[in-house]
């Protein structure tokens, strides 16, 4: 008969409002981004030099585990897939991953500190027992933080305004909706150092009309 599984610690996601997360991202930018409206946000430098979080490039993280990166439970390192870290073309992805993990660091430090694993089996049980719905809360919040940090609303509006001629042009070809958002996102994503999908989500989240 298999030994009964030992109960593992569970953590409850906080129900943080979007306003609270936006305030936290703005506060973070005020503290670490100089000047605070600078884009692209120098997230790699902030992680290593200001937060003193090590970046550990790991070979095969994506190929073998299907993961780009993660914050360690000791809170002092972010492990990143080696290829994502090294490939300049994947820099938007790297930046989003780092900002996302910083989101966990800022918003979920207390919950992470509750998790101490004594054995690999402890950790596996913890992960297997982790409710997907709970994980969704943590992940949504970190995504929201990362989006607001890398793509501040004011700068996003400014960029959209600055390409109003292109938007008029696009509107001749694309109906209002996803195609138009995608075309505009492609034009301005380089300014923020993120992917066009991130910009698309930020436009929707901030309810910006094109």
């Amino acid at each position: 008969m298999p030994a009964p599984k030992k109960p593992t610690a569970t953590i409850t996601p906080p129900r943080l409002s979007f306003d609270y997360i936006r305030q936290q991202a703005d506060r973070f930018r005020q503290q670490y981004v100089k000047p605070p409206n600078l884009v692209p946000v120098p997230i790699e430098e902030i992680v290593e030099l200001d937060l003193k979080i090590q970046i550990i490039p790991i070979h095969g993280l994506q190929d073998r585990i299907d993961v780009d990166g993660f914050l360690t439970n000791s809170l002092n390192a972010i492990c990143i897939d080696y290829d994502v870290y090294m490939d300049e073309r994947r820099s938007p992805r790297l930046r989003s991953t780092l900002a996302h993990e910083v989101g966990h660091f800022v918003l979920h430090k207390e919950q992470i500190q509750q998790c101490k694993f004594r054995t690999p089996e402890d950790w596996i049980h913890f992960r297997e027992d982790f409710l997907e719905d709970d994980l969704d809360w943590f992940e949504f919040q970190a995504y929201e933080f990362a989006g607001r940090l890398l793509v501040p609303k004011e700068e996003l509006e400014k960029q959209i305004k600055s390409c109003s001629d292109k938007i008029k042009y696009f509107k001749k070809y694309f109906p209002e909706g996803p195609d138009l958002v995608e075309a505009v996102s492609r034009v301005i994503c380089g300014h923020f150092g993120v992917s066009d999908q991130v910009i698309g989500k930020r436009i929707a989240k901030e309810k910006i009309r094109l």
Partner: protein
Amino acid sequence: MITFGEFIRELRLKAGLTLRHFCQLTGFDPSNWSKIERGLLSPPKSKTVLIEIARALNLSEESEDYKTLFDLAAIGQIPADLVSSPRVMEELPVFFRTIRGEKPTRQELEDLIKLLGEE
């Protein structure tokens, strides 16, 4: 006593160099250099390489840090217990989701433990 890896990381951060920038200056592979800083690989022994590192960190030959760099590199062994599971236990994530958006399988969880052990 401070290890070579801890010492050099402290100097690197003091010099305002990210891992990427430091490796661009010295030609080290970031993954290997990260292992040296974490004490998982021995420090470089070559005098030429150590001088190159000191240069990247802007250390003058007369400084105390310059001497300490060479001293620590000379004694830098990898303690066996650093390569064991306590380190891996600290590096495991609390939150992560696969790129395909699904819960990681047990096999993937076991593979991650192995991968961190190998790294």
